[in-house]
């Protein structure tokens, strides 16, 4: 069933349109930076963006930092929100289940497909950004000079690759949390739109509460709290505290919402 879901995802034109739309924003930013040479001052603007004018190889990270807070979660909410509710609305859910595809198996396949979509998007964004970064933006001889970490020391290319990989895994995990919430809502409501918007409402509320001092006690538990903590992976030495907390928090969200979605879906009357 996983193979079938992946095939459906890859065959769908919407998948590719979504990926390209997400990819368009960091591309636009790269072009603007290259044309104007106006980067944000260090410490302001999206993470890493101040550094890319001197070192284009950091641009994939900057691009990920651009899409993670908003565009990618929207796409994940839409894709995962559609997982069950979309099949139900199209009428295909009943035909899947009597094929038969087990309900648990279907949920797992949907989750894998959503994460494959995230991986695909992240890889496309990173690859495009690497190309643009090296072609348009600042170029340094990485092998000899190395790349500057945020803390000012230099990182070897190998270190940079390892840390970039870790950062991508961390971003994926954050999106897995979003996917779990959306998948749960997708088993509850009848309309994919409602599931996607419900998920976005959770994320918007979380972002809003993060800016509110009065919500200080809640903040460590908000799903978006540690999303950008992967920046800490590029400090020297790595600042693990928020990364680990973020990992733990996302795992809790994933476990709770997947369990709730599973419990709901496996006992649900399929009437649409």
């Amino acid at each position: 069933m996983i193979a079938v879901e992946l095939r459906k995802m890859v065959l769908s034109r919407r998948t590719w349109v979504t990926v390209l739309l997400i990819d368009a924003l960091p591309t636009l930013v790269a072009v603007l930076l290259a044309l104007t040479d106006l980067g944000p001052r260090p410490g302001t603007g999206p993470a890493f963006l101040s550094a890319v004018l001197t070192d284009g190889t950091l641009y994939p990270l900057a691009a990920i930092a651009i899409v993670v807070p908003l565009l990618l979660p929207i796409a994940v909410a839409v894709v995962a929100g559609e997982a069950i509710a979309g099949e139900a609305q199209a009428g295909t859910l009943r035909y899947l289940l009597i094929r038969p595809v087990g309900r648990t198996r279907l949920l797992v396949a949907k989750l894998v497909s959503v994460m494959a979509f995230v991986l695909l998007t992240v890889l496309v964004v990173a690859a495009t950004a690497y190309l643009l970064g090296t072609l348009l933006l600042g170029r340094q001889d990485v092998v000899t000079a190395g790349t500057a970490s945020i803390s000012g020391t230099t990182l070897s290319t190998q270190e940079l690759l390892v840390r970039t990989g870790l950062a991508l895994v961390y971003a994926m995990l954050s999106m897995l949390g979003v996917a779990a919430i959306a998948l749960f809502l997708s088993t509850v409501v009848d309309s994919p739109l409602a599931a996607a918007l419900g998920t976005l409402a959770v994320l918007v509320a979380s972002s809003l509460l993060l800016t509110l001092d009065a919500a200080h006690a809640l903040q460590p538990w908000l799903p978006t709290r540690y999303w950008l903590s992967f920046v800490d992976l590029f400090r020297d030495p790595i600042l693990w505290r928020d990364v680990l907390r973020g990992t733990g928090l996302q795992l809790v969200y994933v476990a709770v919402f997947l369990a709730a979605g599973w419990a709901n879906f496996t006992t649900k009357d399929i009437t649409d």
Partner: protein
Amino acid sequence: MIRTRGLTKRFGSLVAVDALDLDVREGDIYGFLGANGSGKTTTVRMLLGLVLATAGEIEVLDQPMPAAGRRVLPQVGALVEGPAAYPHLSGRANLALFDAMGPAGARASRSRRVDDVLDQVGLGGIDKRPVRAYSLGMRQRLGLASALLRQPRLLVLDEPTNGLDPQGIREIRGLLQDLHAAGTTIFLSSHLLAEVEQLCSRIGVLDRGRLVLQDQLSELRRPTGRTYVRTPDVARARALLDGSVEHHDDDSLLVRVDDAAALNALLVGGGVRVEVLAPERHTLEDVVLEAAQASADRIERVLPS
């Protein structure tokens, strides 16, 4: 093939299906009749494990449902409340996708299976256009093709001729008769009396969630004990038959008599010209309307007293 005992489904306070005892035997074409909203679709969904019963037991192919769904459902083909497909893919791609789901869909023989069922439902020459562009009838045929992919022992069909034109309906009826002749048991849920009467050997009638009738069609359509006679000589015939004429008009009579052949001999012997003479039978419509009450989607105004 299908047996339920005390099958009940409540949605909140609404009893959709009430203590149903279905009995569909191997080799039947079973007509499951009922008005809209009488609980047909809920029953079909419970048989297939989509809706979970509130109470009662279901056996399909002699195994409990939904517990044995993984073993039972691959041998069952179904059309539930209209066909469904992924609109952006072609009919062939849809069938290949559905075939790849679930057990028993060997990849090597997939395209042959897909071609076979497309031929069966009369879509063999279908092109690559997406299902979005299909007519209602084509979608219905595609849904049927999808149900036939696994060469099922049991077909559960909910309104299978919906959206088809008269030629299409006759074609599908022929297909179902062929499948039945090849050993497939068919459970056909419908509100169309004529469709069921032409096709089915056994009938169950559902009224507001209750099974009010379940019998062989031949039993339901047994002779009424009266004989219909058409003749230009109505007056002479009445005089001959005297008290056994129950009803008459300008050119026909209904006669209560046990032996139609003797009646014919009597009439002809008495100089009555007989155009038509046939035993009267119960019609399915009469039987069903008698068993079921008013239409379930009719809601009477309750007058304040």
